[in-house]
C-alpha cells in the first residue's frame, strides 16, 4: 500500500465519519452560539461534562439515548450559566468562557471521582453499535465507507443539514442571525435579543454536550478524565474555518477528520517521517488562513462578542 492507496480504502472513510462526529456536534453548537453573537469558550469543559454525564447515565442503568439526552441537558445547563453571565449580565465572553471550561471540567472530574472510586480500568458500558441499514450498508465500498456508522453519527450529519436549512429558511433561524448581526435591529422587530441569545447558547451548548458524549457512548465505552483532548478548541477553529456556515462546518469537520485518519494510516507506510504535530496543527492554521481570505468580506457575525443590555446605548 502506498500513500495514495489509503484513499481507496473504505476503512479510511468510515474512520473519517467517526472521528468527525464529535467535532460536528461541537462545531454546530459553537456555531449556533456565535451566530447569535456569543462566543462560547466553555466548549472544552462542556464537552468534558457531556462525556462524563452521558456515560454515567448509561452506567447507572440508563438507555444509550437517555445518556445522550443527559449529556445534552448537562451541556444546556452550563450553557445557561454562560448565557446568564454573558448575555443577561453582559460580562466578557472570552473570560467567562475560559472560566466555564475550567469549572465544567474540574467539576466533571470531581463528580466522576466521587461516584466511581477507582479500580484498575474504569468500568464500561455497551456503546452504540454500528447499525446495518438495509440495502445501503450492503452497497459495495459505499456500504463500508459511509453506511457503517453508529446512530449518533447519522444524527450529527442530519443535524448539520437541518441546522443549515433552519438558519437559512426558518423564522427562528432568521431571528438568530439578525440578533447576531445587530441586536438592536432584532429588538426593533419585536424579537427579544436576550431571550433569543440565551436560547441559542443553551441549545448550542446542548449540542456540545452531545459531542462529548459521543466519545464515551460510541467512540469508546468508558469515561477517562482529560479524554476530550482539545477537541473543543478544534471546534472553535472549525467555526471560523466554516465562516459561520453549518454546511461548511460539516465539511470542515470531515476534512479535519480526514487529516487525522490519514495520518494514523500514513504512519504504517512512512513511519513517523512526518511529525504528527504538523497534521494536528492543520485545523488551526486552516482557520487562520480562512480568516485572512474572508477578512475583506466581513462574514463574521457583526455583533459577535458585543453584549446587548436593554435600555443602554
Amino acid at each position, binding site marked *: 500500500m502506498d500513500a495514495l492507496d489509503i484513499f481507496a480504502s473504505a476503512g479510511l472513510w468510515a474512520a473519517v465519519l467517526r472521528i468527525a462526529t464529535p467535532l460536528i456536534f461541537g462545531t454546530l453548537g459553537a456555531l449556533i452560539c456565535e451566530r447569535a453573537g456569543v462566543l462560547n469558550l466553555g466548549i472544552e469543559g462542556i464537552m468534558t461534562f457531556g462525556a462524563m454525564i452521558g456515560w454515567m447515565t448509561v452506567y447507572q442503568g440508563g438507555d444509550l439515548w437517555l445518556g445522550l439526552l443527559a449529556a445534552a441537558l448537562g451541556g444546556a445547563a452550563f450553557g445557561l450559566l454562560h448565557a446568564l453571565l454573558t448575555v443577561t449580565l453582559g460580562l466578557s465572553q472570552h473570560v467567562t468562557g475560559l472560566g466555564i471550561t475550567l469549572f465544567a471540567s474540574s*467539576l466533571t472530574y470531581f463528580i466522576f471521582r466521587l461516584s466511581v472510586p477507582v479500580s484498575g480500568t474504569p468500568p464500561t458500558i455497551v456503546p452504540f453499535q454500528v447499525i446495518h441499514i438495509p440495502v445501503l450498508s450492503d452497497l459495495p465500498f459505499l456500504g463500508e465507507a459511509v453506511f457503517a456508522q453508529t446512530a449518533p453519527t447519522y444524527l450529527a450529519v442530519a443535524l448539520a443539514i437541518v441546522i443549515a436549512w433552519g438558519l437559512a429558511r426558518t423564522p427562528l433561524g432568521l431571528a438568530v442571525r439578525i440578533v447576531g448581526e445587530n441586536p438592536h435591529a432584532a429588538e426593533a422587530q419585536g424579537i427579544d435579543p436576550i431571550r433569543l441569545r440565551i436560547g441559542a447558547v443553551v441549545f448550542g451548548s446542548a449540542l456540545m454536550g452531545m459531542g462529548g458524549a459521543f466519545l464515551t457512548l460510541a467512540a469508546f465505552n468508558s469515561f477517562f478524565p482529560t479524554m476530550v483532548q482539545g477537541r473543543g478548541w478544534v471546534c472553535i477553529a472549525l467555526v471560523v474555518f466554516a465562516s459561520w456556515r453549518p454546511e461548511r462546518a460539516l465539511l470542515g469537520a470531515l476534512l479535519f477528520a480526514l487529516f487525522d485518519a490519514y495520518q494514523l494510516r500514513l504512519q504504517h507506510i512512512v513511519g513517523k517521517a512526518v511529525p504528527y504535530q504538523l497534521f494536528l496543527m492543520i485545523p488551526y492554521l486552516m482557520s487562520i488562513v480562512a480568516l485572512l481570505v474572508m477578512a475583506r468580506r466581513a462574514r463574521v457575525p457583526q455583533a459577535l462578542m458585543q453584549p446587548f443590555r436593554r435600555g443602554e446605548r
Partner: protein
Amino acid sequence: MRLERRANIPLSLAIAAPIGAVIAALLLAGILIAIAGAPVLEAYQRMLIGAFGSRLSITETLTRTTPLILTGLAAAVAFRARLWNIGAEGQFYVGALAAAALGSEHGLHLPSYALIPALMVAGAVAGAILLLVPLALRLRFGVDEVVTTLLLNFVAVLFVSMMIEGVLKDPLAFGWPQSVPIVGDASLPKLIARSRLHIGLLIAVGLALLIWLIQSRTLFGLESRAAGLNPSAARFAGVSLTGVLVKVACLSGGLAGLAGAIEVMGVKGYVTTDLSPGFGYTGIVVAMLAGLHPLGVVVAALFVATMFVGADGMSRALGVPSFIADVIVSLSLLTMLVGLFLTSYRIRR
C-alpha cells in the same frame, strides 16, 4: 429585572464585592466538600494552612504567584490598549522553549550574569514575535485577534511538542519528549534555600512596578492609555495607533514569553508540554480580577495562587478529590466577575 449603570462606585461596595465573591465561591465549594464527606469548616482551615501555614506552603504559594504575575501583566497591558491577546499560553511556551534552547549545552556559552539576562530577553523576544503575527494580521487585513491568538496557542504548543520530540529533544531523557535542559549557570538563584522560590518573584514584582510607572508617567503610557480608551480620539490627537499596538504587543507577548523563560530557569530546568497548567489563560483571569491595574495584578495573582495552592493542600490533607482545587479557583473567578459587575451596575426591580 433591569440593569442600570451606577454613576459612581461606592467605596464600601468596591471592598465588599470581591470579599463577597470569595465567600460565595467558598460556600458553593463547601457543598461539594460536604458531598465528598469531609468536614467543611476544617477544609477552609486546611486551605489557609495549605497556602500560608508553613514555610513550604508560603514559598509554594509565592512560586506559583510568579508566572501568574507575568502572564497577568501580559494580559493587562494588552487589554488596556484593547489588544485582545488570548495567546499568552502559546507565548509562554515559545518563550520557555527559546530559553531552554539557548540556555542548554548547545546554546549560548556565557557566564551566569550575562546568560540569565540573555535568556530572559530571548524568551521575551520569542513571545513578542508570536504576538506580532496576529497583530500584523489585524493591522494589515483587519483579522480579529481574539480568535487568531487563541488558535495560535494550540499551534505553539504543537510546535513545542514537535521540537522537543525533534531537534531539541533531550537525548538523555530516555525517549521522553522533553527539551534539552538548561545548564547550571542559567538557573535562577533561589530566594530561600530548600524551596522552589526563586528570584523570578522579585523580577515579576519589579516589572509590575515598572509597568505601573510606564503607564502612569511616560509618554508611551499616556498614549497607549488613550489609544485603548478611545482609539479614534487618540488618532485624532496624533497618536500612532499602529505604533502603540506594536509596542504593546512587544510588551505583552514579551511578558508572557518571559514568564515561560523564568519558569524554565527558575523551576523546571527544561521544557515539556505540561510546563504550564494554563498559566496563560489564568493570566487573563488575573488581569480581569485586577481591573487591568499592574499593581492589582500582583494582588490578584497572589489571590489565585493562594486559592489554588490552599485548596490543593486541603484536598491532600482531607482526602477530597484533588480536582476540588480547580473547582474552587474557577468558582471564585466566576463569582468575582459577577461581584465586580455588581460594583458598576445595580439591579432594579
